[in-house]
């Protein structure tokens, strides 16, 4: 099919991009890597969009260390996340996640900001952001806002970003000494969306668990996290399976996904009991 595009403009800086969105009468769509948006447009799931291309905005790029926080620009490509030494050292979960995201061509274009803003429940980065307790930085007509990841994801493809706002970066606490960051998922084929997956982060303050592909949006699973804190892995598996309400589709049933998520947690727990990272 041929995409039906309302218009296209390339923003030169963040102010320009925000102005373009403000003038778009609600039809503005931010174009970053385009790996979900362009596909949706080509299937006419989205028509008439006024595309605001942010790819040239230098302020949205780059990975920086700021004290005990790591800041990752929204335009950082998945392929850059995979190779960035600061990310590898301070947020290894993100680097590991890139091994599971799609294919090389998609990783070369897709951006971490786009993935988090799109909030696909089957995507890895939204779950990672919540598991790492990231802060989502947005800018908009009323100025910049910082949103904790726990308050960012609201529903299926829904976030608390408002019309006219742009996700500019995420930041996250760097990994503590002895911190564990584990991601496990199972996909039918390499690069496919997972049938189910999970991120487990173990910090001094306790475990953080976020699942992939088993709900409408990334959420922490407090009961299972508490069981993990108590060292009760079997109890955590039971709690996790009870906490989720996974979908049934042509790839797998809810019952299968519920089973699988428990297996993945057991495997994550086995990793956690191995050598420190």
């Amino acid at each position, binding site marked *: 099919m041929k995409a*039906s595009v309302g218009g296209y403009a390339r923003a030169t800086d963040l102010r320009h991009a925000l102005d373009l969105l403000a003038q778009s009468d609600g039809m503005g769509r931010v174009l970053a890597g385009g790996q979900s948006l362009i596909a949706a447009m080509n299937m006419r799931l989205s028509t008439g969009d006024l595309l605001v291309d942010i790819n040239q905005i230098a302020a949205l790029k780059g990975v920086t260390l700021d004290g005990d926080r790591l800041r990752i620009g929204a335009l950082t490509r998945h392929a850059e996340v995979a190779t960035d030494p600061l990310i590898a050292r301070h947020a290894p979960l993100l680097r590991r996640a890139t091994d599971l995201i799609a294919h090389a061509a998609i990783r070369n274009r897709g951006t971490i900001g786009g993935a988090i803003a799109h909030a696909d429940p089957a995507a890895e980065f939204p779950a990672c952001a919540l598991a790492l307790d990231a802060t989502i930085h947005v800018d908009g007509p009323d100025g910049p806002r910082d949103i904790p990841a726990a308050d960012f994801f609201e529903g299926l493809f829904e976030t608390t970003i408002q019309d006219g706002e742009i996700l500019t970066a995420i930041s996250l606490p760097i990994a503590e000494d002895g911190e564990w960051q584990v991601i496990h998922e199972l996909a039918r084929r390499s690069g496919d969306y997972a049938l189910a997956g999970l991120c487990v982060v173990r910090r001094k303050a306790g475990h953080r668990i976020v699942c992939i592909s088993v709900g409408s949006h990334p959420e922490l699973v407090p009961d299972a996290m508490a069981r993990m804190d108590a060292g009760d892995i079997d109890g955590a598996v039971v709690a996790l399976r009870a906490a989720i309400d996974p979908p049934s589709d042509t*790839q797998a049933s809810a019952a*299968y996904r519920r089973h699988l998520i428990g297996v993945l947690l057991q495997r994550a727990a086995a990793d956690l009991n191995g050598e420190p990272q």
Partner: protein
Amino acid sequence: MTMRFGNPDRPNSYIGKTVPRPNAGRLVQGRGRYVDDIVLPRMVHVVFVRSPYAHAKIKGIDASEALAVKGVLRVFTGADIATVCTPWVGVLAHLKGLKSPPEYAIAVDRAAWVGEPVAAVVASTRLAAEEAAALVDVDYDPLPEVTDMMTALDDATPVLHPDMGDNLAFERTHVEGDIDAAFASAHKVIEAHFKTGRHTGVTLEPRSILVDWNPGEGHMTAWHATQAPHMVQVVLAEHLGMPESRVRVICGDVGGSYGIKVHIYPDEVATAAIAKIMARPVKFIADRLESFTTDIHARDHEIWGRIAVAEDGEILAFDIDDWTAIGAYSVYPRTSAIEGNQVVNLCGGPYDFKNYRAKTTVVFQNKTPTSQYRAVGHPIAVTVTEGLVDMAAAALDMDPVAIRHRNLFADDAYPATSPAKMRFEGLSHHASLTKLVDLMDYDALRADQAAAKARGVVRGIGIASFIELTNPSPMMYGIGGARISAQDGCTVRMDPDGSIVAASSVTEQGQGTEAMLSQIVAEGVGVLPTQVRIVTGDTQSTPYGGGTWASRGAGIGGEAALQAAKALRNAILEVAGAMLQCPPDTLDIRDGAVVNMSDGADRMPLSELGRIVYFRGDTLPKGLPRELVQTRHYTPADYPFAFTNGVQASYVEVDTDTGHVKLLKHWCVEDCGRVINPQLVDEQIRGGIVQGLGAALFEELHYDAEGQLLNGSMADYLVPMAGEMPDMIIAHVETPTLESELGAKGAGEAGTAGAAAAVMNAINDALRPFGGEVTAMPFTPERVLRGLGKLQD
């Protein structure tokens, strides 16, 4: 001169060697020319409005809003198209009882599957046509749909086509020997229920056609991504009312076919009808989403099978009950009954046994039509046969290799006839199995499996023997009244500079037809392959023939090319003999020059002979034939089909906690007779295996009870991809057919025929110690886990 294929040092020895593909350079330079690359003056685009209902009466069509879209020229309904295009009926006389109602290019008053065309929008751009198609207002009155195969014949199920009486399209039962006695006397009887997932071919290039009608000449040209240009010529001529000589079908580069592009599609015929009505070129390119609901589907079977074995492992009987659902119409002109018919023909195929009963029941339903897709029926028959054989071996505590050696037709048993009445000229089951066992180092693999088990890793080995039907004679379609040619032809011409042009009726779909033809012609004439230019895919400039399907291109088209090339060689040498004043049989052509047969000494380059013949013919003796263009045709006649054989093996690892199957390695030994180009044959086998692995693990079209396709996109319909593909080790046994001089049989479908069964047997070998078993493809992680009894809900 007879060909001395056994001598690798013979002159011009290109047959049997890997030579470069003549079209490879063009394709990698981006100089391929697919239908969508062709742009003609005054060309317009057609987009089809498709039924969103599986079954609905069409009460009215309001195109007023669509016609208001800028760039839109016309909107056509089924009735509009029917004024210039007659409907067709997809039946064959030799498939007794097969029935199907007339099918129109665009549905006239009733849509019978989701995706059936109900209107066509023609516009100056594809974009405008798509915009307008969304605005065509069709008033539907939904009708009860038939979507469940196993209840399609129940009294409570509505009859899809009231004129047909019931939902039974075709039924055939074949009985040989005394089934009941064999089962009554058997040491063991094993019974199982198999399912093969409905899937489709997913060609890289979607279906494409561009049709130009010239009313001044009364001539139609169709650029078409097809496997069978002459068949399409016949169909367009017949249904649009033109002489065949006034229809030219051009099939340039094609981006994969796999059987998908050998059928007549309503939207493609409608495109031709629209071109005739509008008298301007009309292009239709299917997009990926509509391909999923309109390309033919295949393999939607449920099979109940039984095998009876004696205590020593002898197979006493097979009893097969096959069911398949084909869609609302039998596909024209090859029908949708061939697949079920093949299951009856092919079950038990490799084995020498006496008692056989097989029945296929083919029913209508409101889904996308099914028809022939690569290895038609073979994967189903091989899955059932080899699944049952492995289950019998397990029940007898026999090794899977041993039970096969116990029952395979002996290598010296030929000619032989199977209980299904298939005639085999010469097969090599035991030699192939022995070679496979060596190739995979079977005993070492069993040791590796045991060592893995000791460290908690679950692995399995699966084997699948098979036969493959290739080189079909007129017994396949012609006998049933279809105007589908079983012959192929080749015209080979020498140009004045000594270069060769060969025009063949077989077509290039990307598989290397032109490479195969170039090396045959080069060897047959005595020139370098680079001196041969191959022309295919044009009904106006190639001889008449069937095209590319049923693994026939090399075996039939190759033989025609060989005989035409040899005839040209003889014609050249007749002239050379007169010029050199010596008997032609003392001369030979080697590397593009006339030489002495005895010592190979150069006598005359072909360019000199060409100069004399074409420009100084006055210097040759009057009456000397100088026909430097020769045409030959070939049709198999001794056997209905040239059966080939082979055997595959799969080594898998099963995660018994998640059900995930990892393919570790795959082997195939097959016997396609004379191998013309080893690399092309190996890659045919590998490509075929990949499609078989897709069937085993990934591919399945899901419908809901209302007949809606649930996973019609590349995100949801999983094709096999490189990351999951194992190393594939390919080897050959060569038993040339004696029916042709070339001796080649087909190799296009062997890989697909046996791969899924090998994987199923490997998974079940892994699951057996846990009491698990899977028989419903594809073997998704969930199905494997359920097969292990680890998932209840």
